[in-house]
């Protein structure tokens, strides 16, 4: 019985100690370093326009449906067009899901129609499938490329100009080999809007 109570005491004291050290001091120390060293990133890599309005985060995708914008990937995060950071997540539909096959069928035909593609053009996978987070800020290079004509036409811009903007808003692989390159849709679209 004596050991029982001494162990209980140890457990309770240690729980409190760990709460103070690991849950109190530790995040504060990290908070301190983060806010001093990387204030922008620590606060969400927010994109603020010239008027001081927060337009989003460079790390978060946003919904775009108009022809003049590059379209992000389909999203399963939240209602409507998705891209709700408070309900992140994927479709979680499996390989033999009819629902998934149906939605991909729909997405493919929409994608082809929007971008004037023939029915034998294979559609980039990322353009018709939902991402894991539903907030994927990127689309693949080929996906962006296939949308260039549409966007350029809607904005009466030179396609080369649009391609240049794509180039500028492409996140290359880290250190040249880590990960896959992707085009940041929000940044690209804001850049397009900024073009006079």
């Amino acid at each position, binding site marked *: 019985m004596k050991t029982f109570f001494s162990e209980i*005491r140890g457990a*309770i*004291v*240690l*729980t409190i100690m*760990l709460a103070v*050290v*690991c*849950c109190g001091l*530790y*995040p504060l120390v*990290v*908070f301190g*370093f*983060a*806010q001093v*060293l990387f204030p922008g*990133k*620590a*606060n*969400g890599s*927010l994109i603020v326009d010239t008027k001081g309005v927060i337009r989003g985060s*460079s*790390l*978060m*995708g*946003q*919904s775009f449906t*108009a022809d003049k914008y590059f379209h992000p990937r389909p999203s399963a*995060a939240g*209602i*409507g067009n998705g891209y709700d*950071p408070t*309900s*992140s997540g*994927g*479709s*979680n*539909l*499996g*390989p*033999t899901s*009819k629902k998934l096959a149906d939605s*991909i069928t729909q997405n*493919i035909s929409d994608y082809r129609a929007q971008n004037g593609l023939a029915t034998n053009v*294979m559609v980039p*996978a*990322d353009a018709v*499938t939902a991402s*894991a*987070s*539903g907030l*994927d800020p990127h689309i*693949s290079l080929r996906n962006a490329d296939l949308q260039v004509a549409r966007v350029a036409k809607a904005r009466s811009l030179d396609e080369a100009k649009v391609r240049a903007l794509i180039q500028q808003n492409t996140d290359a692989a880290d*250190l040249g080999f880590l*990960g*896959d390159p992707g085009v940041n849709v*929000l940044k690209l*679209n804001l850049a397009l*809007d900024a073009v006079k």
Partner: protein
Amino acid sequence: MHSTDWLQLAVFIGALVLITKPMGLYLGQVLDVKGRTWFDFLFKPLERLTYRLMGVDSEKEHDWKQYTFAMLMFSLVSCVFTYAVLRLQNHLPLNPQGFGPVSPDLAFNTAVSFTTNTNWQSYSGESTMSYLSQMVALVIHNFASAAVGIAIAAAIVRAIARHSGKTIGNFWVDLVRTTYYLLLPICVVFAVVLVSQGMIQNFKPYTKAKLTEPYTTQVPKLDDKGQAVMTNVVVTTQSAKLDAQGKPVLTNGVAVMVDVPTLDAKGQPVMTNVAVMVDQKIEEQTIVQGPMASQVAIKMLGTNGGGYANANAAFPFENPTPLSNFLQMLSIFSIGSGLTYYLGRMVKNQSHGWSVWTCMMVMFLGGVLLCWWAESKGNPIHQNLGVAVADGNMEGKEVRFGIFNSALFATVTTDASCGAVNSMHDSFTALGGFVPLFNIQLGEIIIGGVGAGLYGMLVFVVLAVFIAGLMVGRTPEYLGKKIQSFEIKMAMLAMLILAIDILGFAAWAAVSDWGKAGLNNAGPHGLSEMLYAFTSATGNNGSAFAGLSANTPWYNTTLAISMLIGRFLMIVPIMAMAGSLVRKKIAPPSVGTFPVSGGTFVILLLGTVLLVGALNFLPALALGPVVEHFLTLQGKLF
């Protein structure tokens, strides 16, 4: 399977090799009460203070029963603590979103989940948990459960290394030292590095961003109590519109469709309840904020895996760049890999440590290659619809990670008992999803959860040594210690518990309404969802075929029990085995003892893991991912 992907794989393995020895050496200092570290100046006073407040004599060691008892007591107390905080979060500070109390079953599930290092999340953090709940009630376990795992592993390694003794270390000392000297310092550095990649670390309320392109969508109408307003409508089906002659009406050669009420046997229209929908204008995006980096660092390093956000490491803030992704994967493996070195060093047989490591890496590579191949090959059903074959299966994956880093992460997170995900396993191809499921079913012994991976692997080592020892004609010995019926009994008990916990619960769910109600997919994939849930819970992994709606009282309770069994009923027999091993004498090696290192041993261990550990799950897997694979090839949909 591009060449840069191969390069990434090589760099990952290379980096792991490089950190294994330093980590192992450092663990040797941390897990020795008299060990010295660079952080002594900072933490030594704190360590002494902690012991004094706890009333612990750091010099006094425990035998296996005292050690296990202390561990159970600590787990119980800290679990109750978390449960209390979750239930009372609405009365506690740091709740800027004003979340209500967590429901009893969810709080039970979550408290158990974090105590057991599982971090299964039936909830989505960003819409359920207050900052205090996230920061304190949950994060405390990210440290503590990891430290407990490492402590148990250290106790068992000591039991193997020592001889003719009784004690295997002091639980409290192991726990405190691991937390202060190992986890905290690494986490501080790691968290700041993660922030440099774009991870958030603040205490602000969620930010509202103005959408560039606002839109309107339909949402269910809610009444005052927040319940959806329902209405009774006639069920209709579409059928071709017929003209007076009974011929289909065509426009441009296509039949015109009309809604026709469905009638029941009595000719009455069938009615159903549907939610009343209203328009809602979406003008803003709510950007999640909070102390994320500090939580993510320990969630990876401690192989906890509980995400800050629902999408876990796929959530852009939680894993902003491929570099952060790489570091997170490396950190998942770092301590587990270092522990194999620690094992070799403690038992004075470094090649044994590396052999165990090699065996793990062979299985790791097998998993990565299969998963990566299956995901790059993609889904033939979708490809027939017009999805580019070269892109592979991108459903549930992020562009910045692509196929390879998603497959690698899925393998790493399930080899270890981490359970963080950067892609949705539920949407993997059948064989791609088979890999994470199978990895967990092996007992997460491929590097494994911090500590848990090593002690799980040692169970297989004991079994391998036993069978092989017989085959060389001697009473089997492991590093000079005889493996006798008690050790076999405890090892097999652990195996049996693993199998019962996974198969028993999954089978129950498969034929229960509560089980099937949560499914997001029909057909074999639905079975995989349930199997994955209980596999993940038992293995204390925490990843999921996340389509499963597990936030129901039934699932929350059964999964919590499954997690408790998978953690503590595994540890107790293993600790009993440690208690038996520490008492044994060490027989010096002779030409009659086969070496527990080298190629033969690796193959032997591999064979034991696959034959003894995995065969049990094949029939269930055959009905899940295996059958699904063949159905995918035939284009069958559910």
